[in-house]
């Protein structure tokens, strides 16, 4: 079971968190629950930057690639000249590739967020556990994470 410390004040919460880390408690065993994002807590726990950014990169790059591949290959599969433009007309295809870059990038970032934050969480939906506006520090056993 986890030990639990509850604070109403953000400053006191951060002080307690700092103290715990200074006392040598490994950051992996500490979990915090806050009513809004507290960047200082992340710093104290030295969590590092979120890997959601890699999902953004992969999504965006695959969007660009899909945009160009889709437009070029479908145009080549039925090579019909329209309006005197070349079969592979790169400038208009850039517009499609641009739109798909953003679409795939945004959707993949969102998917990455859900995956990494383990949402939707059925346990969270069912449990009905609420912490209100409190800042909570949970210290877990060495065994479990």
């Amino acid at each position, binding site marked *: 079971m986890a030990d639990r410390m509850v604070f109403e*004040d953000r400053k006191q919460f951060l002080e307690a968190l700092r103290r715990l880390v200074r006392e040598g408690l490994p950051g992996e065993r500490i979990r915090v629950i806050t009513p*809004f994002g507290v960047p200082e807590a992340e710093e104290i726990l030295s969590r590092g930057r979120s890997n959601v950014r890699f999902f*953004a990169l992969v999504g965006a790059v695959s969007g660009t690639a899909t945009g160009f591949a889709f437009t070029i290959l479908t145009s080549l599969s039925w090579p019909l000249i329209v309006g005197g433009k070349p079969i592979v007309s790169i400038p208009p295809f850039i517009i499609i590739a641009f739109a798909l870059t953003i679409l795939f990038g945004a959707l993949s*970032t*969102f998917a990455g*967020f859900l995956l990494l934050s383990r949402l939707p*969480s059925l346990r969270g939906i069912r449990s009905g556990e609420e912490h209100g506006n409190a800042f909570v520090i949970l210290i877990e056993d060495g065994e479990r994470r």
Partner: protein
Amino acid sequence: MENAEKYAKVDRDILAAMEKPGRFYLAGLAVTATLTVIGGILWAYQIRNGLGVAGYTHPVNWAIYITNFVFWVGIAHSGTLISAVLFLFRARYRTSFNRAAEAMTVFALMVAGLYPLIHLGRSWVFYYLIPYPTQRQLWVNFRSPLIWDVFAVGTYFTVSVVFFYVGMLPDFAIARRCKEGIRKKIYTVLSLGWKGTDREWRHYGMLYLFLAAFATPLVASVHSVVSWDFAMSIVPGWHTTLFAPYFVAGAIFSGTAMVITLVIPLRKAMHLHEYITDDHFESIAKILLFTSLIVSYAYIVEFGLASYGENIFEMEAFRYRALGEFRYLTWAMIFCNSLVPLTLFAKRLRRNTAYLLVVSLLVNVGMWLERFVIIVTSLAHDFDPYVWGTYRPTYVEVGISLGSFGLFFMLYLLFVKNLPVLSITEIKEHL
């Protein structure tokens, strides 16, 4: 006040907007729902009888429906500007407007998306626009601006919905805690089991930053693509490289006006004066003034290009716009978009919400007229005097247009009572 108490007060104040509706609210809902139904019936009538019931005649085959499409897509833009661009610039006053503006973006795009379908002679084959594999192996023409539109607006809508939803995720968790009954269940599911752990917040911060970064170029790209629906043709009055920046500035201008139109009554009705202050309105009025100046500059450049371009068709198009049959609309447009906003140079007027509301309504009218004037006058008076014509809208077109306003405001009223109108977590963060 203790911190905990302050936070609880923010929860209470903002969720109070979601309490049982009053008489005025229900009356507004009834009016907007009626307009929506009338619009729907008229559309059904048009589908049954064909586009002949609209006022389309040769040569004016694009008119009010396309005007409305451009108008609503334009309205959407400032929602993204406020939620994404101002987020990246860390503008504090954004918190007062972002939720309302994001909702506006989503609803405006829903309405805008209907217009290409309404404008189609055979609405039921709209899916021809979407590239899908068929046994004929025939694909869409990716060189056509109309297909760019499908991609640009489709992407814009999807990203806006994701952005809107993600912004509300932690607020759903608060609504889940504070509400009872069936609403509690709905918010619980919508919150996806959000608890507010450090892991959730860390990934959430990165997600929000990236969504803002992805949405920011859309502010410039979507309305540029819409402008190319016109500029890629050779119709005098449309065929100009000025169109993309001109339309983007106009879109932000009209959208900002719509945000002001929506948020001033919202603040009054929901007693949110503490969270949406006069300082915030002053800041957004400055955006309105600034974009008005860009739009006015574009008007001047447009006439300049025609006057010095040595192209008689272009010159005639602009002579007709300013002095022809639709001159009153053109001058009304210049009055609303270029002259009235100049008064916002006065600080006292920028801080006067009643005045600001009037200005924003006039700007909305002016921007609708701008699209109408660009579309109709250019088509009515193109190259060959033998085929010049004119255009008068029919009751079907007017009714469907009013129906779309009804639909937009109805969706907005439903939003106000069912979702948190301000970003609760962000307000707490800045306390």
